[in-house]
């Protein structure tokens, strides 16, 4: 388990400021953030390479701020691998196996090396000079080297970026299996949102050295805490406007008062220009309110469809962007653009084209106010 509370660190002119997050024992955490947001600095602080200037860092229940890196049993894999160029691939992998801090003796150290070599199919590379390896091979060897010492925590800094798509999927799967089998706590830096959603139990969103939001990935993606986060996470529909509670005016689609257990959640009406959306949730604090609707949540049809969805709008298709099997359709609703993600097949079967009249539908629950 990794618990950071108000953790601060400094590297040259860059500051990591009062970072708080928690990655439970055996969980897979992903750190997402733009370049220069402090992702690598965060990993280096957790690994003990950078000494914190404030706050607390607890690993496995112990305060590790003064514990040197060699006694933390934390594997660290940098994006570029940093394989030791004066050693062979085999020597690199075996470097930390059976080390004083590792959870193994000499024999089990050799076993751990054999296991990771088999898992990542590295046997043909063992005698190679690391300088001759491709970028992807280096990343694989670097992951194997970190795992061969049987760490209790694995820190990965964009470890799959140099791998080809097939190898990336395979390696990601192997790391995931090891994570489960060894009950390994993993913290991985990525800027690939798909990867974050696929791998993560916990997502930590970092920007300019601060944590913007952390929590379950689906929660962070569906319910971003600010319009900046929403746009950063690739939410296509971020509308600014005003919100008001609907209970006051007794909406026709709610009977009576909400039940006690739903206290704090309200029916809301959100207006942005000529567009009025219905939603449920907590009332966001602050003056300006933003509504976030992910493009995947918007359904497009040629005729108005009767359904449980509370939001139905008529408009004209402004633009269709085809991206292979996927298409991004922008519907103009009285001057407000609404983006929907569709399969290319749906676009074809519905006969969608620029200028065509169409309807957009999404549930009240798909609208997140922040």
């Amino acid at each position, binding site marked *: 388990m990794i618990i950071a509370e108000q953790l601060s660190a400094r590297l040259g002119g860059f500051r990591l400021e009062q970072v708080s997050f928690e990655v439970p024992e055996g969980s897979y955490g992903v750190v997402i953030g733009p370049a220069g947001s402090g992702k690598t600095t965060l990993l280096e602080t957790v690994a003990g390479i950078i000494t914190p200037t404030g706050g607390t860092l607890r690993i496995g229940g112990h305060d590790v701020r003064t514990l040197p890196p*060699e006694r933390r049993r934390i594997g660290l894999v940098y994006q570029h691998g940093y394989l030791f*160029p004066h050693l062979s691939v085999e020597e690199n992998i075996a470097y930390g196996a059976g080390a004083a801090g590792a959870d193994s003796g000499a024999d089990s150290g050799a076993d751990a090396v054999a296991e990771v070599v088999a898992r990542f199919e590295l046997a043909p590379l063992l005698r190679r000079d690391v300088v001759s390896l491709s970028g992807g091979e280096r990343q694989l060897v670097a992951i194997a080297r970190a795992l061969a010492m049987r760490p209790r925590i694995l820190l990965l800094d964009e470890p799959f970026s140099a791998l080809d798509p097939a190898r990336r999927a395979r390696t990601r799967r192997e790391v995931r299996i090891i994570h489960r089998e060894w009950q390994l706590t993993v913290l991985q830096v990525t800027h690939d949102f798909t990867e974050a959603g696929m791998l993560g139990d916990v997502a930590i969103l970092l920007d300019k050295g601060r944590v913007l939001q952390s929590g379950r990935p689906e929660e962070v993606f569906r319910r971003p805490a600010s319009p900046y986060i929403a746009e950063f996470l690739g939410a296509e529909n971020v509308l600014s406007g005003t919100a008001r509670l609907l209970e006051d005016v007794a909406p026709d689609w709610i009977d009576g008062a909400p039940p006690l257990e739903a206290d704090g959640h309200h029916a809301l009406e959100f207006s942005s220009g000529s567009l009025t959306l219905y939603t449920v949730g907590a009332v966001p604090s602050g003056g300006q309110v933003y509504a976030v609707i992910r493009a995947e949540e918007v359904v497009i049809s040629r005729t108005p469809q009767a359904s449980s969805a509370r939001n139905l709008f008529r408009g004209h298709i402004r633009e269709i962007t085809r991206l292979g099997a996927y298409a991004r359709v922008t519907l103009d609703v009285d001057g407000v653009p609404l983006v929907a993600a569709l399969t290319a097949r749906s676009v074809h079967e519905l006969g969608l084209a620029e200028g065509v009249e169409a309807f957009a539908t999404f549930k009240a629950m798909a609208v997140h106010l922040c």
Partner: protein
Amino acid sequence: MTGKRLPAVSAILSAIAASLLLLFLVAPIGELVVQGGAAGVRQLGRDAELRAALVLTGATATIATLLGVVTGTPVAYLLARRRFRGRAVLSAILDLPLVIPHPVAGIALLLVLGRESMVGQGLLLAGLRVVGTPIGIVCAMLFVSAPLFVSGAREAFARVDPRYEAVARTLGDDGWRVFRRITLPLAGRGLLASAVVMWARAVSEFGAIVILTYNPKTVSVLSFDRFTSYGLSEAIPVAAVLVLIALVPLALLRALRGERELHAGGMQ
């Protein structure tokens, strides 16, 4: 049109300037080797004083270099890796011997290590005489050439990406093991090259040595002595031998640099 002509003109001017400088540097040395190289090598067989000077120069330069490497390596590492108060001052102090005239360095050393000084008297009590002995030669060589090693070694350490060391730390090595297993091998060629430069500088030192220890004579002092006592013709073979000795580390250095550049191409 003018824009195209200008680079061509500047390239020609640069080539002429470079050729003139090269000629100025190579011509005297080439002439010396051509005139006295063969004679110097032949003279080695029959000139016992030259042979003794050669052995003395090699031995004292080697001892000075070893001392420089042992004491200079930690300082170079410190300067390359740590940020601390007084770092700039330490750096400036280490560069000082490079900017003062070498006879002045000899006089300064004489003040500190001579028999009139406290250190000199202490050393005499311990049975060590500095002035007029090979110890004085080693001290003079160390003083003028150690900064070259520290400067080169510092650069060699700075070229090693600290992330290699960081990874090694996470793999279970403490600071000393990381230094031994990662930093030293990765900076090794740079350190060796710096030691070679230091050795070559020590071998060619004259100004500080002549103040501290005129006798026994190093090759540089001997060439000066032959010139002042017997004239140019007697000095040429001795000077040529010194040039030939200096060429050996220079060739070694080129080989090391070539390999390092090749090696650095595929790091990370």
